[in-house]
């Protein structure tokens, strides 16, 4: 079986599992958790494109998430704009902003880039908090309308699950396609040796900004979906802590692995559910996870699973040849 065939099969299997799961969970609270896993997966994949492939760190990605949520929220509550149109506008705005700040910010490297994105994230957070006339400030923005297609309204867990996961699967598929393509190779080349990539003709500066804009676009769309499914948003969800959470999801899952981002998102979304006391320990656990995974399993859990799978396969083959 060729590599491409196998990849398509894995994706179809994953998509089928996703689409079939709600049938076993009708009316369960867990469906709600899965919706969040979907949104977080979108965010983790978006950051992974920037961090895992191009190797550019961003500590302010929650800002684009928030931007998408607020633009959608504001356009649909304070103006009579159709939610789907608002989502597109939110995406464009986020991509546009990313384009504008992308050129100067991506000239920076390493810690300087980290600090700059952190600063950017905090500036956006302050804006969300202070422009009370538009965003409702710390009390948040409520009564955001649900999305709907014709008479199908996305206002319950069942419908929302499919809405979110169709988008998430789409984002995952597009990202997988991208990673196997000329662009994906160029991004990974930038990550491994920027100078060699330039010599090969890769326009590093422009490509970095382009992927930054794509990443922002996807995060904003996730934000828009979040706004329309929650119908209420407040700045708390879009601050530095959440940026760290998204980063941790990407790192745990594995830099450069799309399924890894799903894994990371799933684990970090479920952790607060599983550990009642998690609330107090969350920050410390994120810190520990970042350190331990980076030191001992830099490829993330996905690489750990792959190693395990290889080990098991070799044992099975060993037994077959002995039998």
């Amino acid at each position, binding site marked *: 079986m060729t590599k491409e065939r196998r990849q398509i099969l894995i994706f179809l299997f994953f998509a089928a599992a996703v689409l079939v799961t709600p049938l076993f969970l009708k009316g369960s609270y867990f469906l709600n958790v899965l919706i969040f896993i979907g949104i977080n997966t979108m965010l983790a994949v978006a950051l992974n494109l920037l961090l895992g492939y191009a190797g550019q760190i961003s500590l302010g990605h929650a800002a684009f998430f928030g931007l998408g949520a607020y633009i959608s929220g504001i356009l649909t509550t304070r103006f009579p704009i159709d939610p789907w149109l608002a989502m597109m506008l939110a995406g464009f705005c986020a991509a546009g902003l990313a384009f504008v700040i992308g050129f100067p910010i991506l000239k920076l490297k390493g810690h300087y880039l980290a600090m700059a994105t952190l600063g950017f994230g905090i500036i956006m957070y302050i804006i969300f908090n202070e422009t009370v006339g538009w965003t409702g400030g710390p009390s948040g923005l409520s009564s955001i309308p649900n999305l709907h297609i014709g008479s199908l309204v996305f206002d319950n867990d069942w419908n929302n699950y499919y809405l979110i996961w169709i988008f998430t699967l789409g984002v995952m598929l597009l990202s997988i396609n991208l990673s196997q*393509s000329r662009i994906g190779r160029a991004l990974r080349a930038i990550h491994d040796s920027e100078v060699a990539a330039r010599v090969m003709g890769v326009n590093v500066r422009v490509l970095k900004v382009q992927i930054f804009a794509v990443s922002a676009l996807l995060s904003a769309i996730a934000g828009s979906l979040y706004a329309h499914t929650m119908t209420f948003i407040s700045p708390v969800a879009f601050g530095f802590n959440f940026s760290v959470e998204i980063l941790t999801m990407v790192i745990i899952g594995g830099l450069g692995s799309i399924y890894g981002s799903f894994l990371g998102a799933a684990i970090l979304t479920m952790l607060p559910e599983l550990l009642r006391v998690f609330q107090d320990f969350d920050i410390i656990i994120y810190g520990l996870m970042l350190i331990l995974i980076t030191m001992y399993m830099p490829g993330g859990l996905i690489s750990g699973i792959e190693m395990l799978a290889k080990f098991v396969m070799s044992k099975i083959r060993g037994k077959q040849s002995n039998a």
Partner: protein
Amino acid sequence: MLRLDGINKLFGGLTALEDVSLSVTKRSITGIIGPNGAGKTTLFNIVTGLYTQTSGQVYLGEKNISFFAPESLASLGLVRTFQNVELFGQMTVLENVMVGLHTRSKSGIFSCAFKIPSQIREEKYIKEKGLKWLKFTGLTDCADLNACNLPFGKGRLLEISRALAVEPQIILMDEPAAGLNSRETVELAGLIRRIKELGITVVLVEHDMELVMDICESIIVLNLGKKLACGTPREIQENAAVISAYLGEG
């Protein structure tokens, strides 16, 4: 093919290159030699756009490429390899060569993400070409290995394959023989000759005198940032100034 006119490069108070002018004939194999610190790699870096010269001009054919950024040079047909092999370690050998085809392809983010038919066709083309260049350098068996796992000699060959995938007019090699054993060096010489047969101009910076004298048709000698001599291998070997600059080397 390649012409440098009065290149000067100062780093603060240090003069790395002083009034260096040279020209490289099309389809030739030219060697640039000189003791350590002569400015050879600096010269390469200037030609390939990684450094900017303090004064002077660089011409590729008729085109003045003096201030061009490195990324624009590949599509003009100029490519280089590095002294410290700069491979894309996390990608496979084949993928490394496929990056070389970046300027021979044009699918953008949208086409790649949505896998439109023209992108699928182009991807097939890139892969075929990539395999062809791996075959040229004898690396076909390593195609699916991770580049960081390659032994050093094969890593050098990979860098050359990748550069060839650009389908350049001229390839600049920075110390390609460094770290190779004698067998590998002989194979390298054969490879460079085959590259020339493809019609590609080769310029190499080298310390391995045997290799240089063997394959180069024309040699330029640099010393302390200045051009000391230029000529055929025989002329260089008999040049008194060159001999004294090397103090018995070669």
